[in-house]
């Protein structure tokens, strides 16, 4: 087992709305990413994927608030730290973030290099302009971006270029954990491929030590990450290797999710796609029992009255369902 780069224990965060209502978008989530590994997080819109990404950084501002749990980056617990310390010593340096909408992630009236300067200087005030430039052009070169990009304004870059520039900026300080929140969802397929290749490159060249990749595109996740975690209504419902989660899902929700997509593999031609009926629960008032119960085809009265805890299986997998592995497999086989 490699060195654990990021460990999250029972992290819970909530949004507080204008009307003082609590929305638990991340509810007791635990995960672990080892050095050199990547974890994918999948789930439908509004399931808490992006909120989890924001929560993992340990820096909260309204309307998002921290409730409980621990975030440990390379052996250092950051959840008790002062927000200003986190900002100065952790963000960008230990853990970095690639935002969902790279289109507007850069200040429209500043050159790329000026922003990089601000980022680098925020962590090391002594570094000179020339050194920053040197460092940035080296990193851009390594990632296959022309160093002339540094002198450009964001409006002068195409969508794909902008996204790759944002990625290059995110990893400028060689963070231990990189959190990519749907980095390719707004791009065409060619640019997507370039972005994904770039992220793989970063791992291979050890610019970053581990990665969390968030997307709703499961086939992509299967090709990019080592492990996959499926989220539903703020909770994680299943975790396993990419192979296991995509081809042998245990939780009925994962099963439904995987049944609704095409994974380009041999044998997928004759498979009929299915949809999951219904909509996710309102997270202002999450159901007491299993959160998926209302939409689950295997639901029993027990599901609704009992709180469902995650179950660890023998081969290091996890799922959150009251049924046993055997029962579920038998049920899926009988369809």
């Amino acid at each position, binding site marked *: 087992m490699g060195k654990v780069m990021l460990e999250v224990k029972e992290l819970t965060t909530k949004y507080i709305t204008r009307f003082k209502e609590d929305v638990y978008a991340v509810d007791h989530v635990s995960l672990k990413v080892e050095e050199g590994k990547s974890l994918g997080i999948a789930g439908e819109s509004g399931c808490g994927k992006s909120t989890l990404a*924001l929560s993992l*950084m340990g*820096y909260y*501002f309204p309307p998002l608030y921290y409730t409980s749990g621990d975030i440990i980056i390379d052996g250092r617990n950051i959840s008790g730290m002062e927000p200003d310390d986190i*900002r*100065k010593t*952790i*963000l*960008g*340096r230990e853990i*970095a*973030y690639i*935002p969902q*909408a790279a*289109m*507007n*992630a*850069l*200040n*429209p*009236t*500043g050159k790329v290099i000026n*922003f990089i300067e*601000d*980022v680098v200087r*925020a*962590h090391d005030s002594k570094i000179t302009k020339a050194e920053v430039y040197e460092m940035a052009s080296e990193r851009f070169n390594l990632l296959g971006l022309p160093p002339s990009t540094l002198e450009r*304004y964001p*409006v*002068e870059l195409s969508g794909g270029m902008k996204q790759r520039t*944002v990625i290059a*900026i*995110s990893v400028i300080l060689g963070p231990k954990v990189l959190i990519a929140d749907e980095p390719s969802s707004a791009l065409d397929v060619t640019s997507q491929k370039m972005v994904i290749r770039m992220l793989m490159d970063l791992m291979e060249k050890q610019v970053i030590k581990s990665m969390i990749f968030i997307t709703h595109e499961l086939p992509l996740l299967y090709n990019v990450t080592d492990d996959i975690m499926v989220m539903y209504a703020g909770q994680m419902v299943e975790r396993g290797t990419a192979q296991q989660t995509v081809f042998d899902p245990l939780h009925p929700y994962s099963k439904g999710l995987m049944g609704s997509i095409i994974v380009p593999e041999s044998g997928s031609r004759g498979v009929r796609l299915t949809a999951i009926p219904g909509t996710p629960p309102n997270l202002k008032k999450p159901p007491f029992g299993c959160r998926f119960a209302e939409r689950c085809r295997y639901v029993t009265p027990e599901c609704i009255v009992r709180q469902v805890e995650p179950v660890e299986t023998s081969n290091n997998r996890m799922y959150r369902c009251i049924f046993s592995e055997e029962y579920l497999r038998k049920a899926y086989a009988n369809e």
Partner: protein
Amino acid sequence: MKGYFKYFRNKFFWFVVTLIFAFLLNFLLPRLMPGDPVAAITAKIAQGSTSIETVKEVYKEYEQLFGTDKPISQQFVLYVRNVFNGDFGTSFTQYPRKVSSIIGSSLGWTLALQLPAILVGWIIGNVLGALAAYVKKGWDKVVMPVAIFVNNLPAFGLAVIMLVIFAVQLKWFPTSGGYGFDLIPSFTPNFIKSVLVHYQLPFWTLVLIAIGGQAIGMRSMSIYELNADYVKYARFMGVPDGKIIGYVFRNAMLPQVTGLALALGTMVGGSLVAETIFSYPGLGSTILSAVMGSDYPLISAATLIVTMMVLAFNFLIEIIYGLIDPRIKAAQSD
């Protein structure tokens, strides 16, 4: 820089085209107003004279003097030639004063009143708006309603309120004029003191009106920019708040710069209301009396100055914009 030159050339071309049209309309519109100014002057001059012949004679003479007997196209050529020689003609209503001398004497008063008022109002308004957006909490709850209230108060209403409170009730300031009516303009301490006292009410009225609009605009722009994606991203990359505020307010200022340019452009004729209510001897009062008396040369000259100022400031602002906002340059050089 090649892109910028192209941008500049394009803007300059449109500046010239607009100027030509503005010039034409400036000449034409006052002359399309109903009423015959020459007849009015003749009536005044020939008062008491019973001979129709004499009246006709006088009318002919003035018609020739002002050139109103010629066809309008010929008048235009004449007008353009004179304007280029710095001659705006003779005023109808204040005959035989030259238009240029009337405007010269009132323009200074207007500029001295408007320029500081606009600048002070703009700066205070923007600072208040930015603070309201950034500090929020109680501050925003006070600044916003007050700003909206002041901004929606019509200029004449605010001017009259100020007049009643500070001039009539408290008697801190005089009610009208640019200086004491018993004084002759000169650089004596007595006269300067009188000017300063008369200056306060119109000045603060204009400042108050400017503050309201600017604060509202700046507040909403700042809130919009503070919620932009780049702010969140910069935060998550550990960039300190001071730097981020720098990005935000620079971007939020851009539309405000346009607002300032427009205000400066229209400032010469803009304070008509305030000047009228306080009987301030500026260009606004002059334009008002010129319109009342169908004084073509004076109206044309005054509106020409206003038009030129508006166009010049718009042109200037577009040139500056091309330098400070890379988005505009990029859009133009495509």
